[in-house]
Structure formats: structure tokens, C-alpha cells
């Protein structure tokens, strides 16, 4: 502890402080230095430096008026070693140690009455002003400095005591008091100046900060992020340990931005608290002014806060926007009384700008949110429209019916692919033209007029008419036209949906014709049966031999009738889609065929029948009755088509996969047009007038039977006037599939043959396209492996020719090529290849693909 005002103990020291020349120089320097200092700290630093020049140790403490304590801010010792110790200890030039002012018994005299105090600096005094753990330092200090005398004077800033200066030197006495008082007054004036400067600096700082805040608000960042950055800026205006911005919403106060809080605490603070539970905030609301608590430990209002336990000073700054409190900024310091009224004023100014910034930012945010929502809505709507359009387009595109959309005048605006396919007009050719491009002269103008009247009245029109394709051909169209209206109900477009019903109509016609034909076919034998029966019953002039002859006519025609009826029944069954079942059994086909040919020779003695074939016949698995039906039909047709007699040949050929049977006559032949339709249901050559009776009914049945056996039937050759050959195949039993390889590269051919043999297949091979085609026709392989580059013709040409011929049309073809361009592959597929293999290929892949192709 120190003495009260102590009497002088030695005059020597005073004398030594009488300013001599040297001292005046120092004094002048002090005045200069102090007045040049721009900050309070700099003023104090200049003061102690000059005191050291006088040989005086100096310690300056800052007076904390709020809690009546003193915090060491400057320590300047003459002994360099000691100074170093102190600096090392505090890692700065100040000890930053706080002790209550009450521990000084001269407190009142000094603080209240501004009386400089003379004290004795002994070990106990030094110890009392240092922390207990620094006792060793205290001892060293006393040993080096003293026992010394000290003079304590107060420094003032803006009229209030702000610091205490301890001047310590062995030679100090009360005579030195006036000088130190002068120093103190000089310093106080300088402090005032520095404070003003600092304030101005701070205000400029605030202005700059606020400008930055303004920038922040105008960025695209969201409000909370902006507020966090604003808190960062606040730190340059007013130092804090932690700070937070709270905003009020629905009578709740929530933290929206925080700086300097531990994460956990921040989470807690983010929980909204009702305004009515927050006394401090209520007070801020009432006063619309900052609330400053110098030490929260002694303030009940603060304890309700969930703030950090280390907080001592607290400032609550109202955020005022348009005369309304929208929230607060809370500033915490871990030191009591950390802020001056100036600090608070500055912070308040800052807060007022922040409030405006928040309001602007909120407005900004609202506008931005609205814009975003609007944008999203527009996007959603656009997406919906696009999706709907895509759906509509997909429907139109995929529709099987031909769809055309026109304007009010019938000018085409859109056609779908089915329309192009039906009419032959591409989109480019049709769009912009009137639908009258489809008009055929077969439909009357009256009809079109009626149609237009209906749709212009806004009604849907349905009907059938005949339209003309681009190539001039006519088709029957079933057409529906509907008007499309805009929002006001005005007709803006028409949509026309048409379907080609030519086939259906043709089928209808054929069915009708078929019935007539069938009736006619039945009437012929019935005429004979009825006529002779009537004669035999009614007439007495019929002789014995005549009776027998007539009865044989009746018998023959009844047999014909039976065949006809069974053909009709078969046809009916095929037509109804009922599965055509056969009962195959192993049959020795040679005697069967010989027997059939023999019977026909008897039936048609005008013709010569011949059976040509190998000496040994493999056993085939067939339905005996059905196969006989096939031959009877073919032979019956052969007879009918060669009325002048001639040779009729039944030829058999054993291929690797099939037995092939051919029936050849020397008759009239079948025209190309007839050949196209020969195996079609209900079709009958030139049915209306003088065609051969009986044909047409049977061939559909024949085709069905052959196919039920797994075989194929086709017209092998027919020329008007030169006769006809019809061939069909029956697959051999348990046969090994045969694969024809058409490939000109020997090496590749050998590899393929080897792989296929290993896979259990029979192989045939050709190195030229022509020989390949020949083998395909004569041997009817189960599959063809085709190279695209052959010396005599292209693979595409071979594919085309295979497809042209009815015998080879259905043989699956696997194309093997080194060309792998997509267009190439597509082309071969479009020509009917079932698979495309790119060279080189491996063993397993090749076999796998062959197996798949065989299944097709």
C-alpha cells in the first residue's frame, strides 16, 4: 500500500529536476511529440518516453469509471532488462492488468479532487499493484528502482478523468509535483486533441464502413449473409468480442446474424424468443435509443439473456426503420465498461444505417423473390406447354390415321407421317396447299359443298369419300373433320383424320363376290344332280344303260360337291382365325403320290400325268389326308388351266432341308396380276365373268395346309400360254438346318464353314452372287450368311433378288460385312436382312447370332 500525501524527504531530487537547458530541450520535445501524436495511445507513449528522458519510470493505467477499476496500459522502465522482462511477460508494452481503484487509499483525493499524490514505492506497494503470481517481478522492481518516490497524477480526456500516471524515481519529491502536474495538463490537452482526431477518424471509418454496407446490400447475396458481412464491418467501427443482429417478426425476436459466438451458442441464440420475455429489447423499443450495460453481471435485465458467460459490457442498438423498431444489434465485450458514450453514438449511427440497409435488402429480397417466383412460374408454364406440345406432336406423329390440320380456308398447316404415307405427299409438298389436292373426280362437288357447310357451321363432319394420291391412284377414305376454336369460340383451324378403307372395302367386295362365286360353284354340280334325278324319277323313257350313266353323273357331281363343301368349311375355319390343326405322321410319300397321280390319270384321261423324282424317298412327317388335299387341288387346277390336254408333271426334289414338290402344266399360264393374288383369301381370277371354275377356293386352303406343315408354297414359273409350275416344300424330319454362305474371300469362307460345322449345321457355299442365288432357289437353305462385296454383284442386289422371289422371300439373311457405317447397316435391314455382323467377329458371337436368326 502507499502513503497518503507524503512530505518531501529529499530536496536533492527536486533540484535534480529543475529544468536545466537539457530539460528544456526535452520539455520542448515532449510538447512537440505529444502534439504530433494522432491517437491517445501515441500521446501516452510520447509522454512516457519523455519521462524516461528525465530519468523517471512511468506506469499509466486507464480508469474504468463504470466499475471503478484501473487497467494498466503503459509501463516504461529505465532499466532495459526490467523493461524487457515486463514486455516479455505481457507480450506488449502494457501489462493490461486490472485492479480496483479502491485498493489505492488516495483514490478519493485524486479522483474526486484532482490532487496529485506523493507515494512511497516500496516492495509492499509494488506487490499490491501487480498480480500475485508476479511477486518475483515486484521484488526485482523494488530492488532495482527503489525504494523510490512516486507521484501520481490524473490525466483527463474531455473533462473526465481517464488515466492515472505513476511517475516513479528515487529522487522525486513534492517539488516535482508542479512539473508533473504541468506534464499531466499538457498530456490531457493532447489526449483531448487525439480523442477528437480519433473520433473524426472513427467517423470517417464509419462513413466508409456504411458505404461498404451500402454496397453489400446491393449485392445479390441473401439478407442473412449480408448481415453477417455487416457485422464484420461493424468491428472496424467498434471493437467487440461478439455481436449479433436480431430481427423482430410476429412479436418474436430471432438472431439472423452473429459474429464471434461459438457455434453451439449461436444455435441457441437463433431460437426465436417472444418480445414480451425480453426486457432489454422492450426497453430499446420504448426508448428508441441504445441501451448500454457497463457490466452485465450487475444488471437483472441481462441475466434473462442466454448470452456468453464471459460478456461484461453490452450495447443494445435499436434498428429503426420508418419510425418502427425492426430489431436490434447487440454488441458484447468481455471487458466491463468497454465502451464510451462516443463508441455508443458511433454504433448507433451505424445501426441506423444498417436498419435502412436491412429494409432495402428486405425490399430487394422481396422483389427478387417475386421475380424468381415469376420466373419459375413462367418456366413451369413454358415447360408444361412444351410438354403438352411434345405430347401432342408425339400423338400426331405416332398416330396410324392420317391427320391434317388446316386453316379456316382449308390450307394445310400440318400433316403427320401417316398422312404422307397414305397420300404420297411429303410435308413440304402439302403444307401451304389446299386439301383439294386430294380431290378425285369420283366424289361430287355437291358432296364437298355439303362437307364444308357442315364444318363451317362448327359441326363435326364424318363420311366416306374417294381421294386421290399424289401418284394419281384413288383410295377410299373414311374421313372425320372437326373444327378447332380459339378462346373466343372462333373457328381457327380444322383437323381432318382419315383412314384408308380401300382394303376393307375391297375385302367387302371380295367377300360378296366370293359368296356369288361359291354359290355358282355349288350350282353347277347341283344342276346335273337335280336335272338327272328329276328325269330318272319323272320320266319313263330312260333306258337301263342310260339310268346307269345318269346315276354316274349324279355320283361324280356329288363327289365334286363334297370337295367343294369341305373346301368351303376349311376356308371358313381359316377365315375365323381358328387354328388350323394337322395330325402329322411318318408317311412314305412315294406310294401316296403314285396313287394320287394314278387317280387323276383316270379322272382326266385327256391329260398325260407324269411323276418325276429320285428312286429313294426320305420319310416325311405329314398329315396324309391334308397332303392329298393339297395335291388334288393343285392337280385339279392344272387340269382346269390346260383344257386342251397336255402333260401334267409332278416332280419331287430332296433338298438338304426340305422335300420340294412341283406341279407343272402346259396350260394357259397365270398373268402377273393374277399371280400376286393367287393365294389371297377370296381372291379369284377374273371372278365376274368367265374364269376357270373352282379355282380360288382351294389355293388358300392349300397354302394354309403347307404352312401348317412348316413349308412354303409359291408360283415357281408361269407364263401366259406356256403353262404354270407351282411348288411347295415340306421340311424333312429331324433335319439339320442348312446354312448357305455367300462369300468370295476363301479364308473367311473357311472360317465361317468351320464355325458353323462346329455348331452342328450343314453348310453350302457360293463365292459368286449368281451361284449363291441359284443355290438359294434350288436348295432353300434355312439361313443365308451373306457378304456384301462379291465379285459379280453387290450384297444389296442379292438381298433384293432374294426378297423378290416367293421361294426365297422368307429365308432369313444375316449380313456379314467389314463396312460398318450406320447408313449401310440401316440399308441392309431395310432390304430385309435379319441381322448385321461386322467383321471381324468371334466364334461365340457368330454362332449366337446365327442361332437367333434361325429362330426368326
Amino acid at each position, binding site marked *: 500500500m502507499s502513503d497518503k500525501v507524503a512530505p518531501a524527504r529529499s530536496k536533492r531530487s527536486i533540484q535534480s529536476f529543475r529544468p536545466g537547458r537539457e530539460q528544456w530541450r526535452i520539455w520542448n520535445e515532449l510538447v512537440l511529440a505529444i502534439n504530433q501524436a494522432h491517437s491517445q495511445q501515441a500521446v501516452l507513449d510520447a509522454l512516457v518516453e519523455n519521462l524516461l528522458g528525465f530519468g523517471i519510470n512511468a506506469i499509466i493505467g486507464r480508469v474504468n469509471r463504470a466499475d471503478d477499476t484501473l487497467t494498466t496500459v503503459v509501463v516504461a522502465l529505465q532499466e532495459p532488462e526490467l523493461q524487457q522482462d515486463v514486455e516479455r511477460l505481457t507480450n506488449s508494452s502494457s501489462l493490461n492488468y486490472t485492479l480496483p481503484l479502491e485498493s489505492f487509499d488516495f483514490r478519493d483525493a485524486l479522483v474526486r479532487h484532482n490532487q496529485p499524490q506523493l507515494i512511497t514505492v516500496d516492495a509492499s506497494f509494488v506487490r499490491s499493484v501487480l498480480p500475485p503470481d508476479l511477486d518475483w517481478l515486484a521484488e526485482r522492481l523494488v530492488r532495482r528502482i527503489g525504494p523510490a518516490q512516486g507521484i501520481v497524477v490524473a490525466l483527463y480526456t474531455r473533462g473526465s478523468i481517464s488515466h492515472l500516471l505513476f511517475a516513479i524515481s528515487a529522487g522525486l519529491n513534492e517539488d516535482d509535483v508542479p512539473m508533473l502536474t504541468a506534464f499531466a495538463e499538457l498530456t490531457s490537452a493532447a489526449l483531448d486533441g487525439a480523442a477528437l482526431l480519433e473520433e473524426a477518424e472513427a467517423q470517417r471509418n464509419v462513413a466508409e464502413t456504411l458505404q461498404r454496407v451500402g454496397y453489400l446490400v446491393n449485392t445479390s447475396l441473401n439478407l442473412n449473409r449480408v448481415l453477417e458481412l455487416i457485422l464484420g464491418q461493424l468491428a472496424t467501427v467498434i471493437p467487440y468480442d461478439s455481436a449479433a443482429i436480431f430481427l423482430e417478426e410476429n412479436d418474436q425476436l430471432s438472431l439472423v446474424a452473429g459474429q464471434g459466438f461459438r457455434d453451439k451458442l449461436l444455435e441457441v441464440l437463433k431460437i426465436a424468443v417472444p418480445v414480451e420475455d425480453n426486457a432489454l429489447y422492450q426497453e430499446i423499443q420504448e426508448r428508441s435509443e441504445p441501451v448500454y450495460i457497463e457490466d452485465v453481471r450487475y444488471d437483472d435485465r441481462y441475466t434473462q439473456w442466454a448470452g456468453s458467460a464471459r460478456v461484461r459490457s453490452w450495447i443494445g442498438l435499436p434498428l429503426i426503420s420508418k419510425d418502427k423498431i425492426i430489431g436490434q444489434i447487440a454488441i458484447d465485450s468481455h471487458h466491463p465498461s468497454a465502451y464510451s458514450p462516443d463508441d455508443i453514438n458511433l454504433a448507433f449511427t451505424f445501426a441506423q444505417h444498417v436498419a435502412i440497409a436491412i429494409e432495402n435488402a428486405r425490399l430487394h429480397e422481396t422483389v427478387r423473390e417475386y421475380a424468381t417466383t415469376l420466373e419459375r412460374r413462367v418456366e413451369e408454364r413454358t415447360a408444361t406447354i412444351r410438354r403438352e406440345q411434345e405430347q401432342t406432336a408425339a400423338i400426331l406423329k405416332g398416330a396410324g390415321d392420317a391427320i391434317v390440320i388446316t386453316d379456316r380456308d382449308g390450307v394445310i398447316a400440318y400433316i403427320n407421317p401417316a398422312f404422307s404415307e397414305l397420300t404420297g405427299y411429303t410435308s413440304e409438298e402439302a403444307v401451304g396447299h389446299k386439301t383439294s389436292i386430294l380431290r378425285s373426280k369420283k366424289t361430287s362437288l355437291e358432296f364437298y359443298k355439303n362437307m364444308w357447310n357442315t364444318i363451317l357451321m362448327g359441326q363435326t363432319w364424318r363420311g366416306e369419300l374417294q381421294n386421290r394420291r399424289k401418284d394419281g391412284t384413288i383410295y377410299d377414305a373414311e374421313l372425320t373433320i372437326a373444327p378447332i376454336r380459339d378462346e373466343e369460340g372462333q373457328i381457327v383451324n380444322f383437323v381432318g383424320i382419315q383412314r384408308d378403307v380401300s382394303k376393307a372395302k375391297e375385302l367387302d367386295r371380295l367377300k360378296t363376290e366370293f359368296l*356369288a362365286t361359291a*354359290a*355358282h360353284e355349288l*350350282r*353347277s354340280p*347341283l*344342276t*346335273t*344332280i*337335280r*336335272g*338327272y334325278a*328329276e*328325269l330318272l324319277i*319323272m*320320266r319313263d*323313257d*330312260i333306258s337301263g344303260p*342310260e339310268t346307269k350313266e345318269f346315276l354316274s*353323273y349324279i355320283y361324280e*357331281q356329288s363327289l365334286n360337291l363334297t370337295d367343294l363343301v369341305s373346301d368351303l368349311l376349311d376356308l371358313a375355319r381359316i377365315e375365323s382365325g381358328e387354328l388350323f390343326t394337322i395330325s402329322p405322321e411318318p408317311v412314305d410319300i412315294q406310294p401316296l403320290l403314285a396313287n394320287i397321280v394314278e387317280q387323276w390319270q383316270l379322272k382326266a384321261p385327256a391329260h398325260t400325268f407324269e411323276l418325276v423324282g429320285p428312286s429313294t424317298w426320305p420319310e416325311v412327317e405329314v398329315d396324309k389326308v391334308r397332303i392329298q388335299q393339297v395335291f388334288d387341288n393343285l392337280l385339279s387346277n392344272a387340269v382346269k388351266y390346260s*383344257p386342251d390336254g397336255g402333260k401334267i408333271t409332278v416332280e419331287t426334289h430332296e433338298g438338304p432341308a426340305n422335300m420340294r414338290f412341283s406341279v407343272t402344266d402346259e396350260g394357259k399360264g397365270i398373268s402377273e396380276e393374277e399371280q400376286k393374288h393367287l393365294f389371297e383369301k377370296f381372291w379369284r381370277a377374273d371372278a365376274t*365373268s*368367265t*374364269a*376357270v*371354275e373352282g379355282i380360288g377356293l382351294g389355293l388358300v386352303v392349300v397354302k394354309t395346309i403347307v404352312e401348317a406343315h412348316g413349308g412354303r408354297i409359291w408360283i415357281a414359273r408361269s407364263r401366259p400360254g406356256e403353262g404354270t409350275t407351282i411348288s411347295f416344300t415340306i421340311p424333312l424330319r429331324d433335319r439339320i438346318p442348312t446354312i448357305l454362305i455367300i462369300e468370295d474371300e476363301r479364308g473367311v469362307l473357311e472360317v465361317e464353314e468351320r464355325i458353323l460345322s462346329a455348331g452342328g449345321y450343314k453348310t453350302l457355299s457360293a463365292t459368286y452372287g449368281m451361284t449363291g442365288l441359284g443355290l438359294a432357289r434350288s436348295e432353300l437353305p434355312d439361313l443365308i450368311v451373306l457378304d456384301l462385296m462379291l465379285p459379280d454383284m453387290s450384297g444389296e442386289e442379292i438381298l433384293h433378288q432374294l426378297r423378290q422371289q416367293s421361294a426365297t422371300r422368307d429365308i432369313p439373311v444375316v449380313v456379314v460385312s467389314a463396312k460398318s457405317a450406320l447408313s449401310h447397316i440401316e440399308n441392309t435391314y431395310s432390304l430385309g436382312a435379319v441381322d448385321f455382323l461386322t467383321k471381324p467377329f468371334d466364334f461365340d458371337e457368330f454362332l449366337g447370332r446365327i442361332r437367333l436368326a434361325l429362330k426368326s
Partner: protein
Amino acid sequence: MKKILIVDDQKEIRELVRVTLRIGDYEIIEASSGDEAVTVAQAERPDLIFLDVMMPQSPLDGFEVCRALKGDPRTEGCTIVLLTALDKPEDLAKGEQAGADDYFTKPFSPLQLMNKVDEVLG
């Protein structure tokens, strides 16, 4: 004696008509195709012709024969009765257009055929 020509490509039908009519006092002549019918009719000038319409192997069908005979002054006076399996109205109209006097649809009754002959020639 009245002369009757039977035209049909089927032998059984020609024989049927011949046997039917043999109890009457008529001269029966036959033709098995359309062109033969025209030649025979022009030469023999029959009083009545029974003419089959559908003769697939014949160059001329019954309608054509009918038209030819009715258009020929030598034969235009003879009565032509069509024998036809086609009895749709348009087929019958076709016969009328060709100038046929009457028709019988197959299968016909031989006795009715005889009555017809009596009616026409009697």
C-alpha cells in the same frame, strides 16, 4: 319340225337338255362353246336357243353370243333363253341388255324347261 340349239361347255348339261326334250317333236342341235354357237346358229337358224352364260374356256361367253346373234339379221328372230348360275339383278339386266328373251337359273328343272319350250314354240 322346230329346231332347238343347246349351247353349254359341259357335256352332261347338253345331254340333260337333249334327253329332256327328246319326247317332243324337235330337232336338237348342240354347240360346246360360244364361237361354235354363233357359227351353228347362223347356219342352222334355230327357232330356240338355250344358251349357257359362263363358259370359261370359250372365247365368247353367253352374253356375247346373245348380243352377236340378236345383232345378226339371220338370227335376230330366234328366241334366246339364257341358262345361268348368276341370278343377281345386275347379271339379269346384263342378259336383257344383250337381248335375251328369257332365262333359267341353275339348277333348273328339266320339266319346267320343257314347259318353256312348249310356251315359246307351241
